[in-house]
């Protein structure tokens, strides 16, 4: 695992400023820590030396170097004042780092989200990686919150470890070379052990991961399947299974934890053991009179601080792994589906495929819609085609065929969401469209109708509702998330009305509706057929995909595709 993902730094610029300002704050905080330890050690020495019967200040022969450079008791107020100041700076710098990290997390999340959405907005809406929509949405919402731990837990400690540790080690080295060397010997042991333990953990986890996942999900599986279990009278046998699988989960988890916790053990041991080593060596030298007490205390106070950042980095390792995994999921979104890249015109991967000769576009000269031998391929499979037909202005044409025949894909070429691999799909001017799903959004009915328009024309909204037989639906009715609040049939008609609104708004030459009556009863279906006729009479080319006999009967022509002879 890389400690820092370079791509994260490139995409989320906020992370860079966190690193830069954080490093400065880290140095300030470290200097304050050194000062705090120094002044506290001096203050303790100033009080302790007289009590030990050794006069402070000038070196006296009595205790060898024990009292060397010691402050006198009269300097105590000044020392404590300085210590207090250092404490204040340390606290302030710490607070500032916390806030910087929190702000950085929030900004970085926003920047990553924006980068992902920029990439998605630029891509065809049909170019998905096949993951469920909810999963993609979650990876951009809650998924990114895993970065909080990364920014507030891991990154500041990483900065501190990088900026503070050298200063602290150098200080110890200057204060007492022997202690410094002890620290320098102990320090490299930590990463070596961490790597060894990390490898061991990885091995254990690799072996157990799938198993652990399955076991941790089995309870959810039983709970979610409870109605099914009850129908087949199997509910009472599950208790034993849940108990058994949870026990198995425990024993496997404990096997993993036994290794995982070792890294904490090594960090703890390295930190405390070097304190013990230094305390003992300083102590023995003091007994021999060969070392100043003040310096010994200083080194001892400083040692826990020296190890603190690297211990915290180890403790925040999980936060780092989770955060980087979340970032990885976002980069997958940014990079997009691998397969879809081949469908794009400029994609270099295309070279092995035949050159695309398909064309989509609007031809201002001819009005209406025209499909010229359109073939759509996905991978090596022809989804649809070749299809050739046209819809003239003033005409209602129905497109029929069994499901899977590629009716929707054909329309997608018209909208520019799919590229025909051969042939061309041409329409003139703007096109108004409504898809198979209503896709209504949170907001009022009127806001939904005026989707994509700059402002809401209330009169037009009422008119289009009237035309789809929803005259008594108040356009101010608020809809919940996903357009909830309407019945299936109502939602479908609002979606059709939205296309009519758009046709009016932009003066579309063509109206394309995909299964607009699948949730409608016979009466509303005939209302819809009338509305389509009126659109055609207004000079638009109307193309409607449907398998409903009534709608097919009301069309001027029916084009059938994908039907085996």
């Amino acid at each position, binding site marked *: 695992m890389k400690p820092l993902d370079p791509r994260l730094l490139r995409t989320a610029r906020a992370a860079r400023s966190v690193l830069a300002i954080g490093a400065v704050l880290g140095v300030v905080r470290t200097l304050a820590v050194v000062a705090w330890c120094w002044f506290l050690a001096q203050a303790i020495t100033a009080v302790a030396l007289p009590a030990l019967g050794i006069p402070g200040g000038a070196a006296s022969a009595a205790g060898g170097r024990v009292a060397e450079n010691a402050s006198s008791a009269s300097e105590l107020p000044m020392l404590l004042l300085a210590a207090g100041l250092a404490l204040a700076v340390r606290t302030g710098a710490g607070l500032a780092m*916390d806030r910087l990290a929190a702000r950085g997390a929030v900004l970085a999340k926003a920047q990553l989200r924006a980068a992902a959405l920029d990439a998605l907005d630029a891509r065809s809406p049909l170019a998905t990686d096949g993951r469920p929509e909810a999963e993609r949405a979650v990876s951009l919402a809650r998924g990114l919150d895993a970065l909080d731990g990364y920014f507030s837990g891991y990154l500041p400690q990483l900065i501190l470890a990088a900026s503070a540790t050298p200063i602290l080690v150098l200080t110890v080295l200057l204060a007492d070379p022997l202690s410094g060397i002890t620290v320098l010997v102990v320090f490299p042991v930590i990463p070596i052990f961490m790597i060894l333990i990390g490898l061991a953990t990885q091995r254990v986890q690799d072996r157990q991961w799938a198993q652990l996942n399955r076991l941790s999900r089995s309870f959810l599986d039983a709970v979610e399947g409870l109605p099914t279990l009850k129908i087949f009278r199997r509910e009472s046998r599950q208790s034993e299974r849940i108990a058994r699988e949870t026990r198995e989960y425990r024993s496997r988890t404990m096997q993993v934890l036994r290794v995982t916790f070792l890294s904490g053990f090594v960090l703890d041991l390295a930190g405390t053991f070097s304190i013990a080593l230094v305390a003992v060596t300083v102590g023995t030298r003091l007994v021999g009179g060969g070392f100043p007490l003040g310096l010994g205390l200083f080194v001892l106070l400083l040692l826990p601080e020296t190890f603190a950042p690297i211990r915290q980095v180890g403790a925040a390792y999980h936060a780092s792994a989770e955060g980087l995994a979340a970032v990885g999921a976002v980069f997958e979104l940014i990079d997009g589906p691998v397969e879809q890249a081949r469908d794009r015109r400029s994609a270099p991967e295309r070279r092995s495929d035949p050159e695309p000769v398909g064309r989509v576009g609007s031809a201002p000269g001819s009005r209406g819609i025209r499909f010229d031998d359109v073939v759509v391929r996905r991978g090596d499979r022809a989804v649809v085609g070749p299809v050739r037909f046209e819809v003239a202005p003033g005409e209602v044409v129905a497109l029929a065929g069994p499901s899977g025949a590629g009716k929707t894909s054909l329309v997608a070429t018209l909208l520019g969401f799919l590229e025909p691999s051969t042939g061309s799909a041409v329409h003139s001017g703007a096109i108004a469209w409504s898809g198979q799903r209503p896709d209504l959004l949170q907001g009022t009915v009127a806001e939904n109708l005026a989707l994509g328009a700059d402002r809401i024309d209330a009169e037009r909204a009422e008119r289009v509702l009237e035309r789809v037989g929803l005259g008594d639906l108040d356009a101010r009715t608020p809809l919940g998330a996903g357009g909830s609040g309407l019945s299936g049939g109502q939602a479908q008609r609002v979606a059709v009305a939205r296309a009519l609104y758009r046709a009016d708004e932009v003066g579309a030459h063509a109206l394309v509706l995909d299964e607009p009556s699948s949730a409608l009863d016979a009466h509303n279906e005939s209302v819809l057929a009338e509305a389509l006729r009126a659109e055609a009479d207004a000079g638009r080319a109307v193309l409607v995909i449907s398998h409903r006999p009534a709608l097919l009967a009301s069309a001027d022509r029916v084009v059938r595709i994908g039907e085996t002879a």
Partner: protein
Amino acid sequence: MTRIPVLERDATPLERVIARALPERSKRAPGVALGAIADACVVGLLALSMWLIVRAGEQPPILHLTFAIVGVRALAGGRAAFRYAERLASHRAALTQLSELRVHAYERLVPRIPGAIEDRRRGEVLGAFVDDVDQLQDLPLRVRQPIVTSGIVIVLSLIAMAIVSPLAALVLALALAGSGVLAVRWSSRIAAESDRELGAARAALLDALLERFRAAETLAAFGALGRQRERISAAESELSRVQLRRARAAGLSAAVLGAAAGIASIAILLLLAPVTGQGLSAPLFAAAVVVPAAVFEVFALVPTAFVARRTAMASAERVAELIETPLPAEIPVDAVVEDRSDRAPDPSAPLLEVRGLSAAHPGASAAAFSGVSFALRPGETLVVSGQSGAGKSTLAAALVRFLEYSGSYLLRGREARALPQTEVRALVGLCEQTPHLFDADLRQNLRFAKPDASDQELLAVLDRVRLGDWVRERGGLDAQVGERGSLVSGGQAQRIALARAILAEFPVVILDEPTAGVDREVADALLADLLGALPDDRAAILITHTELPVGVRANRIVL
């Protein structure tokens, strides 16, 4: 489960859940003891090494320091070793408890699912429930354990400190209490305020993003992707605001603890300086001055534990709400019937007959359907149709006794209410509208409907639901269906469920929209086959909103 009989009867639902989440005292004890020793080593190591150095400054014979030198080394090693042992012990205890907790939660859930939770919220509620149950492990691990161990160590440190100097102990106690109250109250007040805000802001962002993905084609076709981006940004900045406020609270409480430790050291130094050398030895003085740093290091776990406590308690409340509250009246309970004489089936009565039947969902103000009457004889098919929301699926739930009913519901002349639920379900089966597939292979998903079925039998049924070729392509019955059936399409899942219902050979089978996700042509053929070939001793109820295929004879009711 007779462990806590008093609690079982008198405790509130929440208390019962908490009691269930905590391992027994005897299983908790090793973790607590090891944790307290490990934390005591932290304090002891700093104090003793300080003492050692200052005492060495007196230049006594080195032999007088042997005890301290050995002690320092022991404490250094002890801390890491005890910490490691503590983590293993407390995790083992919590994970052991998890198995009991899950079984209990499952057993309490059995009567309530699916009746007690609305269909459309069920997936979400149960997902959250399972997370909540697992989250309860935090109660012993991240709440109890740190609070109890640091409590023990702090009290011990204060006692030791009081022996050296009562005044210093008082200063330390005041610093701990003052900063602790400040840090805990601070973070919990701001956090409690923003908990709801945070939830709402997160949901708003997720909704906006979901819309972006679900309605991607529409947004692109209408040139409205930019507008959706604005919505997402607005939801995002609201969430950022709440998150920043929470982070600020957390940062402040950490800073308060750090500053308090330093202030305590300075105060103790000032207070003890005059008496050092007169009644208080210099080494003890030095130890007393630095001990606050170590005590606060231990104490820092407490505010974190309180934050974890709030989350865990919220989980406990939701779990209690779902499984420890009294069963609503709409959920059927097996009646205790003493007299078994009238329970013999009457072969001349209809297979299934209902008169004036109605049923309601728990918490609903009105019945989902009412006044339904029909009779079903062997060989017959009944089609139930009606608008969505008319109560078709509720009728199915009442007939398989997921919901209590009023009116009369007779199975071969016997009132269903008087029969055990399992007996009713042996007679009346259901193929659900949204069936659950278990995360296992196809064979296991089919076989639990008929445990002794052979592979040939299973494949024959799959052929009947037009999945035979697909299954063979996928490598036969060993094919995995994935988590929640994620590796199969909706239509395939429905047909697998249909195969299950066929295998179980229910005398009466209710098919709830069995072909909603299936191509019309395949669906018609499937229904014609299933209902046309109904054995003479069985009957079917078909819930559907589409027309019946030609050639299927059926009675019809409209809800």
